[in-house]
């Protein structure tokens, strides 16, 4: 009995010593501190600054007006008056318009056919082709939604005019028989930063942590290589105590940073932030743990302090796509969805975005939350198995 108690006490002491040594190693390594502290502090700000203008506005377009009528000028004025589009001028023909587009003076061409005014006046359908430059889909989307609104506004106007002309039979009839109204959830302003930043924050947490841990692992291997296979700064301790002690150290460092990223960054830039703090902070605990254990597993692939960057950095892009933030997960093929399942950030993004942007509670995020705890367990066991090899 006494032996068992003694073993337990010594186990905890060794855990504490590992924790203390790891803390020393982290705080005395500028490279690791860059990833553990500077990156979580400044990357969210840099990313938000890039996307903070939120909306694509006043995209330039030009007009080739073959109709030259009051009706066609009215149509152009309507387009120019939208927040999304800005008229840069009238081109004499399509060739000139194409030249403007080639010179990047405009990204859309509206071609008003010569029979436009006749068609409108005689209540026939008028067709107006619009040519989009397709380099960026954001511009295309901006043009398209503005043009749909114009199409509907002109439609409503024409209907009223027809009724006025038709006389008594239909007088007083309200033809806008059905109204429809769209509401946007999550990112109510449809801004780009509001959409992308909450997910990016989770990826920054995971990737900065993995980078730092991989670098610590590589540095230890460098030391071992120089010291005949023994790391002079390592603490003798059981594998489980070592893994837990180290991860506790990383979690301690990340606690204030996580609070900063998930709470203050959205506040600073006015991003969606409707979740309850208790929900997302509880939710994030298994993400931190799973990322830390995953980082310890990734140490296997890092043979040298600096190769950690070559091995880890590019995975950020892969993980971003696997997370379903840009490309939804329901549209992914089976193997990619499976691969995404074993990345903590995938579940982290899903749960955090729902909590932060849509005001979900922890119980709504039940699936991602339990998946994160499962990943924590799996990576913890793997990290313990791979230790001391």
């Amino acid at each position, binding site marked *: 009995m006494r032996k068992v108690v003694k073993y337990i006490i010594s186990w905890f002491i060794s855990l504490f010593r590992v924790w203390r040594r790891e803390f020393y190693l982290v705080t005395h390594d500028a*490279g690791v501190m*860059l990833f553990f502290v500077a990156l979580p502090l400044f*990357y969210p700000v840099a990313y938000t600054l*890039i996307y903070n*203008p939120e909306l*694509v*506005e006043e995209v330039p377009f030009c007009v080739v007006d073959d109709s030259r009528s009051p009706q066609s000028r009215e149509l152009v004025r309507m387009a120019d008056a939208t927040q999304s589009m800005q008229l840069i001028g009238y081109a004499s023909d399509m060739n000139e318009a194409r030249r403007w587009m080639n010179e990047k003076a405009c990204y859309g061409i509206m071609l008003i056919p010569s029979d436009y005014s006749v068609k*409108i006046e005689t*209540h026939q359908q*008028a*067709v107006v082709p*619009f040519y989009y*430059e*397709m*380099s*960026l*889909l954001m511009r*295309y989307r901006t043009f398209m939604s503005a043009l*749909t609104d114009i*199409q509907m506004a*002109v*439609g409503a106007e024409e*209907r009223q005019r*027809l009724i006025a002309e038709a006389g008594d*039979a*239909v007088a007083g*009839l309200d*033809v*806008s*028989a*059905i*109204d*429809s109204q*769209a*509401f*946007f*959830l*999550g*990112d109510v302003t449809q801004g*780009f930063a509001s*959409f992308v930043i909450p997910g990016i924050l989770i990826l920054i947490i995971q990737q900065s942590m993995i980078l730092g841990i991989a670098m610590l692992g590589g540095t230890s291997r460098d030391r071992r290589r120089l010291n005949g296979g023994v790391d002079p700064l390592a603490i003798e301790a059981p594998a489980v105590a070592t893994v837990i002690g180290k991860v506790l150290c990383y979690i301690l460092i990340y606690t204030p940073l996580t609070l900063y990223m998930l709470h203050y960054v959205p506040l600073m830039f006015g991003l969606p932030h409707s979740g309850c703090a208790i929900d997302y902070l509880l939710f994030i605990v298994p993400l931190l743990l799973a990322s830390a254990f995953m980082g310890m597993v990734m140490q296997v692939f890092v043979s040298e302090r*600096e190769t950690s*960057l070559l091995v880890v*950095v*590019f995975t950020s*892009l892969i993980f971003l*796509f696997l997370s379903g933030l840009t*490309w*939804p997960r329901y*549209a*992914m*093929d089976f193997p990619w969805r499976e691969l995404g399942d074993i990345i903590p950030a995938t579940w982290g993004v*899903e749960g955090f975005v*729902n909590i932060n942007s*849509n005001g*979900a509670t922890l119980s*709504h995020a*039940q*699936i*991602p939350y339990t998946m994160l705890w499962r990943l924590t367990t799996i990576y913890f066991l793997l990290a313990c198995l791979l230790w001391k090899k």
Partner: protein
Amino acid sequence: MALWTIIKREVRRLASRPIYLLSMVIVPIACALFFVSLLDEGLPTKVPTAVVDKDNSALSRQMIRDLDATQLLAINSRYNSYHDALEAVRRGEIYGFFVVPDDFEKNAIAGNSPTITYYCNMAYFIPGTLTFKGFKTIAVSTTGSMATMQLVSAGMDSESVGALIQPLAIQDHPMGNPWSNYSIYLCNSFAPGVLALMIMLVTVFSICEEMKRGTSIEWIKLSQDSIIVALLGKMLPHTAIFSMVGIFIQSLFFGYNHYPLNCSIWVMICAMMMFVVACQAFALIVCCVLPNLRLALSVVSLFGVLSFSITGFSFPLEDMYGAVAIFSHIVPVRYYFLIYIDQALNGIALYYSRWYFVALAIFPLIATTMLWRLKKACKNPVYVP
């Protein structure tokens, strides 16, 4: 011949460590294949959505059938209340829902203007946008057909009413990418981005590693004290390998996958080779300023990852803050992307892309003016961990 000696030495170095094979060949090609395979649908259609039908009339059922029949949407479930549907959005099960109010059909026929409401979860941009598009189309066409029905029943002839459903039709002509296929656009920007990242990392790693291991003295000595020869010999094998990898990725996109290629393939190949050299030169500039393995690698990684955003692949440059947007001009991958748009996507005259080629050529020129710093560092290698 000193140059030949250095080239042979570098090839031996590249072959001796698996990390080079991994980061020069496997990672860029695997990432390109990953993007192609992940996005091969082009558009994530059949977005999971739901309806809340409080009316349960012939008209509302017709609308729901129309919704389900669109390519964009899949009506996965029906809920009894707004609240239940919102809960499903919060659980992440659906990306939007369509609400038909009580007594909808009755009010519509009586001319009381009932309101259809629809909700789109814009926290996920692409599915949210597609949901919005799908819902809006059905709402608008129902409005149009109801108005027509009313006018016809009021005694107007159906011919003149017919045009009323849509008096003005704006015809979409997306040039170059008529399917508005996301894959074409994401693959052509992200795969070169990953290639740029790996070129910069490998270039910095291979140069500064010489200083870490103290072999830089021998390296400079072998090249007869000429940093130009030393770097040419070191970089040329990399240039060859990365160019081949880049051209392979292009053949995957333009050849195998038939992405739009409206120019001669040689223009794109030439752009790719200049892009590879520009990325190497960029990394070289970082090495000259910070001749320290870990710092230079960190700078290149942080910059390389940020460059995916700052080049304006998704959010246009002219809408960014000016002070942020200027940084995009120092990113080589932006110029490759612009050449790709002008040439491969839009197929316009080479004349319009002239400055992008010049910009790519400027990177190596800037690098050559700073090599003296690197030489100094190579002669007195100091390893700072």
